[in-house]
């Protein structure tokens, strides 16, 4: 059995109450769970599997197949670097490297203090402002490695570029 965890299942119950208890709802439920818990805790997945009557192995399979899901707790702020083609040819790779230097973690990693998680994501469709990074909810267009410290410090707060 999965190692014992004691997540607050209340949030999961609320989410489950919003959906029909059938397999097609699985991905939608997992997305809401991910948003509520900031990752997919094992015990919540077990609860979801039971509620939707989907084998646990299938739930785990879905949870590991889609990029939107993480089975590890995420940092408070998620820094996403767009890896779209336009961003690639306009230097997204340099943004990733600068982040690695600044935070000491690579894509997919979370800082020890759980403040930041770096994720590389597929094209976010903001190609006109390539390269793009998203700090929390804040989109940073024409992002420059030299401004990385500022981006990280301001998080989602500042609306100006």
């Amino acid at each position, binding site marked *: 059995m999965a190692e014992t965890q004691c997540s607050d299942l209340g949030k999961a119950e609320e989410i489950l109450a919003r959906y029909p208890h059938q397999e097609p709802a699985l991905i939608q439920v997992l997305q809401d769970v991910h948003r509520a818990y900031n990752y997919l805790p094992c015990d919540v997945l077990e609860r979801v599997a039971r509620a939707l009557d989907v*084998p646990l*192995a299938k739930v*785990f399979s879905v949870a590991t197949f889609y990029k939107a899901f993480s089975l590890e707790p995420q940092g408070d702020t998620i820094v996403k670097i767009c890896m779209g083609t336009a961003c690639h040819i306009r230097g997204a790779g340099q943004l990733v490297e600068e982040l690695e230097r600044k935070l000491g973690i690579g894509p997919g990693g979370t800082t020890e203090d759980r403040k930041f998680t770096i994720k590389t994501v597929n094209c976010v469709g903001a190609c006109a402002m390539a390269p793009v990074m998203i700090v929390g909810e804040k989109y940073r267009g024409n992002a420059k490695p030299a401004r990385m410290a500022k981006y990280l410090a301001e998080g989602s707060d500042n609306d100006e570029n």
Partner: protein
Amino acid sequence: MMPTLHINGRRVTVAEDATILDAARAASVHIPTLCQFDGLEPWGGCRLCVVDMSRESWDDDWFKVVTACNHPVEEGMTVLTDSERIVETRRVVLDLLLARCPETPLVQRLAREHGIEKTSFEPNPEPDDCILCGLCTRVCDHIGVSAIASVNRGWGREIAPPFHQAPPDCIGCLACAEICPTDCIPYSTSSSRREIWGREFEMLRDPKTGEAVITKEQAEHFARRSGVPLAYFETSDTSKRREMAKTFEKLQVVK
């Protein structure tokens, strides 16, 4: 109506719901397969059974590459299993599999049969015996258990129980290990206990002889599924034969 088609020039008539693979077998034309199993739905994952196919209504020289395992037959169809591009595609697929599983006897043998002794690609630094044919997960789904499934995607894909821990839904039936064409799912079994996927099972033992062929979980699952009384599973086949023999003898006495 039973469709008639040509495979490598051989004429063959098969049942309407047959696949190209069925037809090829009927025509004694060998098509290699890895992920195909008669008792399961075709999956089309290994791509070893690719063939060239042309429909009656198409231009003579127009062929499409399809997988034989799941493509339905059609009246007037022409199938080639040995065209140059098919042979080459199959060779590359085997070459790729050999790179993934350089030490796996089955893959080595198939590759050798297609003239490949050594992979031309970069061999897997961590040789693996799993060819990701999906037979184990499909058989597990088929019997209604789904204790294991594919995990991750792409190159990182693997077959595993949930959270890589002893699978709670597993019934220890060993079907996954038995069906595995490269025997890469380890297990151990005796009349007292069985172990697979890191989970231990107690066997359903005959109270008299101590013999056992299935686990308790397996008996319960199949009794539920098939409607066969659970009591049927509780005695071993030798005990049951003995009981039957005794019944026969009694019949004799009555007479």
